């Protein structure tokens, strides 16, 4: 079953879905395992696993540091894919890889897609690969039935959203605001208007990410988005209180 279908099925039973994010190898794969377990057991619907990259230009300080520390630990792309396979085999929710394009490019796009498919990965988020730059990528995604997840931004025009909608699969990742990951967003009138524009521009489920930090934020999204994305917040939590704090945090979000 492909990503969009899985999410639609899960959405039938819930007001809003929850996607969370981890940086692979940070603080360790061991910790990643525990964090994923707690996330799944507390009702997370989808997890994006970031393969660390030395130049994460779209990430804010928290995820940036996690990328660097993971690489300093010696994390490799092969380890990340193997870990993804292990998770997908263990838990019955969709797992995605998030990373930067160079990781695929250098690994070999063909090889990356083949290995990701074998790992039963459902989708890919590559923030620095706009559709214009990814002809081969989108072809391979289709062939391998792995959803290329595209991003709407507050700066995207209607026309641009249409293009993105036509190329993306799985869901549309709506970035809540300008800027990088990890900063609080405010969900005022501008935001509602933007979200309405997003909804009009695609029939795919829409996920809202960037700066969602607590239950209140998620409540505000119910009825307007299909999925809320929790990013840097769990990394901060693990940094401060350890992996075991993740479960209670997730539980408290609904």
């Amino acid at each position: 079953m492909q990503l969009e279908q899985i999410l639609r099925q899960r959405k039938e039973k819930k007001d809003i879905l929850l996607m969370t994010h981890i940086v692979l190898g940070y603080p360790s794969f061991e910790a990643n395992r525990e964090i994923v377990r707690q996330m799944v057991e507390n009702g997370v619907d989808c997890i994006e696993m970031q393969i660390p990259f030395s130049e994460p230009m779209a990430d804010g300080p928290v995820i940036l540091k996690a990328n660097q520390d993971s690489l300093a630990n010696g994390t490799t792309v092969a380890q990340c894919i193997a870990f993804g396979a292990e998770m997908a085999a263990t838990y019955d929710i969709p797992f995605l890889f998030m990373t930067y394009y160079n990781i695929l490019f250098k690994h070999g796009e063909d090889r990356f897609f083949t290995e990701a498919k074998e790992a039963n990965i459902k989708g890919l988020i590559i923030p620095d690969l706009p559709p214009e730059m990814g002809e081969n990528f989108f072809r391979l995604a289709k062939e391998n039935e792995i959803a290329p997840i595209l991003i709407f931004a507050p700066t995207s025009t209607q026309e641009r959203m249409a293009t993105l909608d036509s190329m993306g699969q799985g869901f549309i990742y709506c970035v809540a605001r300008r800027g990088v990951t990890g900063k609080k967003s405010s969900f005022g009138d501008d935001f509602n208007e933007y979200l309405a524009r997003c909804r009009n521009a695609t029939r795919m489920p829409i996920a809202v990410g960037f700066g969602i930090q607590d239950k209140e934020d998620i409540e505000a999204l119910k009825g307007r988005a299909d999925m809320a994305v929790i990013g840097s917040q769990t990394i901060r939590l693990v940094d401060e209180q350890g992996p075991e704090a993740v479960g209670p945090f997730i539980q408290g979000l609904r």
Partner: protein
Amino acid sequence: GFFGNWGGAYIPEILHQTFQELHVEYQRAKNDPAFWQEYLHLMRTYSCRPTPLTYAENLSNHFGGARIFIKREDLNHTGAHKANNVMGQGLLVKRMGKKRVIAETGAGQHGMATATMAAKFGFDCTIYMGEVDVRRQRPNVFWMEKMGATVVPVKDGSRTLKDAINEAFRDWVTNIDSTHYVFGTACGPAPFPEMVTWFQSIISEETKEQIKELHGKLPARIYACVGGGSNAMGSFYHYLDTDTELVGVEAGGHGIDSGMHASRLCGTDASPGVAQGYKTMFLQNEDGQMLETHSVAAGLDYVGVSPILSDLWEKKQVRFEAATDKEVMAALDLTMKLEGIIPALESSHAFVQAFKEAPTIAKDEAIIINMSGRGDKDIFTIAHAYDDPSWKEFIISRAAEYSSKS
């Protein structure tokens, strides 16, 4: 936005619209002859263009081969070719109606140039600079601040140029509406490589006239150092369709086999990759993680290189060589003593290769070395590299004065 297999614009979606606007404005400027005239007027009255082409008679005699000419980008306002690009982008920013500029800087020269431009045009200005480079180039930081810019030391990654670029992008995606990112070299997402090259092409536009006047014909070869590649592209541009041989000189650091260098197009340590918004030859490991680079010259200490140069390299239209830190200090020394000219450490790389080849070139041929900037800004690095005892004494005594007073 591609040059052969290289280039492109690998940018986060949030920047899409901004890049559209930039493309449009750039094309409009390019097609508007009045824009280039305005640019020339600005460069003529605010900077010092045309910069001279100096016949280096003593160096020529010393090597006994080709007639050596030096293109004096050091005489630009702010002391380097960086001004060409920055002032051009300043005019574009004015047209786009934006009020804030940001920039990355390695050696500090692009930061200086941008802070200068921002002061001149009345823009707010933030400069991102790797923490290591802040330490290497403190005087530049002082001046940038004095011109009203905010200098942010970047503490991530290798804390050099590439990290400053990442951080500048992070600022940009946050402040797209108000802000233009003044990219400092012929790298990054399209249209930057082409646009920066366009502004820098003023160098070869001038030398082509000048060398004809001074030498009667085109030069046999042109040498330029290659960090990001903007001074090389600028000094090569109008010769691409001529017989002049073009030579790019990269940072050989401790030696091209040492792993401690920044040679992307000569040597075998680099491979194709995509980062910082564009595809080129990067110094990266097999997983695509960027490597630390090394050079005595902060401005060459960079993992990537202009995609246009990668294309010209692939097509063998430009030859690439490397100069080691040690060779650079020797060439700098000789140039100071024989010509009374102080090239920047970056520029000195080009001098190294020219000196190696000059003796083998006929005496009735000319070669041009593009002197991208002046070295007197690098005093802390150069005096340090020469291990100058009275310099150390001077610093120690100054520090003692500050310590006792504070």
